[in-house]
């Protein structure tokens, strides 16, 4: 856990960078509607890639090579995928996935 000053620095950095992305059209393009085609393309194509990488980041400390071979993670992740394809209810998928993961951790 970080100290108070470190936490302020971290949250402040995230807040400033986030605010910069939101203020960007006003700051950089002076409000013009056009953006370079490559930037527009990446703006749409990058998010699906980023979301997959963030899943990998969340699972980075699972033990894939030793017991329990990331089985709780894999089982809970599959449950989330299946439930979400079926019901399309984010809250339900997240809640059921998390509860089943907490339960599975008790088993191993």
């Amino acid at each position, binding site marked *: 856990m970080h100290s108070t000053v470190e936490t302020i620095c971290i949250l402040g*950095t995230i807040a400033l960078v*986030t605010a910069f992305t939101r203020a960007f*059209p006003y700051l950089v393009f002076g409000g013009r509607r056009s953006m370079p085609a490559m930037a527009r393309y*990446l703006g749409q194509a990058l998010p699906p890639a980023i*979301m997959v*990488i963030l899943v990998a980041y*969340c699972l980075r400390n699972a033990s894939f090579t030793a017991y329990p071979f990331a089985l709780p993670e894999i089982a809970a*992740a599959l449950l989330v995928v299946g439930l979400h394809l079926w019901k399309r209810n984010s809250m339900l998928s997240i809640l059921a996935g998390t509860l089943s993961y907490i339960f599975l951790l008790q088993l191993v």
Partner: protein
Amino acid sequence: MQSPRLRAFRFALKLNTPIMIEYFFLGIASGILLNQAGYAPIWSLLAALFIYAGAMQIIMVPLMSGGASLLTIAAMTFLINARHMFYGIGFVERFRAMGRPRSIYMALSVTDETFTALSTVQYPENIDPQLGDFFINLTAHMTWVISCFLGGLAGEILSLSIAGIDFCSTAFFITAVVNQWQQFPSHIPAITGAVSAVAFYLLLGPDGFILPALGASMVALMFLRDRVWLKMKEEQERA
């Protein structure tokens, strides 16, 4: 007769109800996560007020616990929130007309969800559109602030740490992947992300792979642009 302000507020409240319900639950989850990592509820409140970006507030918890450097955190924030740069473009004139300081607040409080609401809203004649826009952003933002703080408090009351509760961030991003897999016209971006994540995880291990994987995906997608673009165009024409 209601004042124009109250009418606009009630209109925004009704329009925003689904967003507010989503923010309520996600905010609680994000507050609990940050609290379980050892941070008092006030941090959740401050983060909600000044960061106000769901995915970032959820992924920042493992980043902070994992001891990521400030530079890594800044770069990741930029990449994850870069999509906001595109949301703003269409609203520049609309927000500027509201005058400062309200226009600044509007520019800084657009999210995935309020972007959609602002883009599709149609105001009846008795609603002032500028007031309506303002209350759309304000009600969503305040819901987020309150629910993140409540989540922090809930974590405090639970007090004992629950092993595995951090899986709700994993689950959150999995649902985002499933949504985009079904909605985005091409699967190339998602596959690119998966390949680069696995490759750099094997190469660099769990602590150093995320930024290289994001960077490599960006470069790969620039090279694959023609193929992805083609799919996106096809989809547009069909719509």
